[in-house]
């Protein structure tokens, strides 16, 4: 029911193309290239996480903890 209404409602001889979902109108690169692209994206993802994690794994400068220590004292410190 969903398929029918969208292809009818939205005019155009292109309606059929829309139903073949994963086919962009631009010429596709050969299959091995899109595998390659996926590989590259995965590699970028790995490096991106590495870039982020490098900072996450740095020791936290003491000023940060100092802030919370000060906050503790000023908030009535029952400890």
């Amino acid at each position, binding site marked *: 029911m969903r398929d029918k209404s969208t292809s009818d409602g939205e005019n155009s001889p292109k309606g059929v193309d829309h139903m073949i979902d994963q086919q962009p109108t631009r010429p596709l690169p050969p299959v091995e290239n899109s595998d390659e*692209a996926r*590989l*590259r*994206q*995965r*590699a*970028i*993802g*790995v*490096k*991106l*996480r*590495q*870039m*982020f*994690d*490098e*900072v*996450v*794994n*740095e020791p*936290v*400068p003491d*000023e*940060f*903890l100092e*802030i*919370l220590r000060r*906050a*503790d004292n000023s*908030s*009535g*410190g*029952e*400890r």
Partner: protein
Amino acid sequence: MSASEDLSTLTGAARDNVFQKDLVTLIPHLRAFARTLTGNATQADDLAQDALIKAWDARASFQLGTNMKAWTFMILRNQFYSDKRRSWRSTQLDQEAAERTLVAVDDPESPVALDELRQAMAVLPAEQREALILVGAGGFAYEEAAEICGCAVGTVKSRVSRARKAVQGILEAGAYGRDGRPADEAMGNILSEAERLSAAR
């Protein structure tokens, strides 16, 4: 010991303690997010500290047991953009210093590829950069990233997708320009590095 139900009954110092313990664990992540937003280690820590203070001051409005990471990231991000509005000039001027800092912070063993990725990230429009970092490195779902950025889920998805394509394009194009050969070195470095990393895991 489960459930936000238990947590929600906490008050006063006991609640503050729980809140603070969770907040402390997020500091490294806030620093990393700030670093990617500012591109500068010193500015990033200033920003992260401001965000930490803001989060602490706003602790009463946080519901214990919900996603504190997303909440603090949102605070940090808001802080970043309000700072930026106040002094957009200084971030521009510091761009060079930022690049030096990033390189300086690097492990000497760290591969070229990482610097190139940083540079590629630095050229992205801010909203694409933050979306890619949140989803691609920060471990947030699209929905959470959308909440942090105050935009629609679909917007985040398209920003992430455009950012990914742009980064790949920049890395590939950069190598073409450098030595005139079609062998894309930056991308090649990243590929081999990524392989090494995932093998090590």
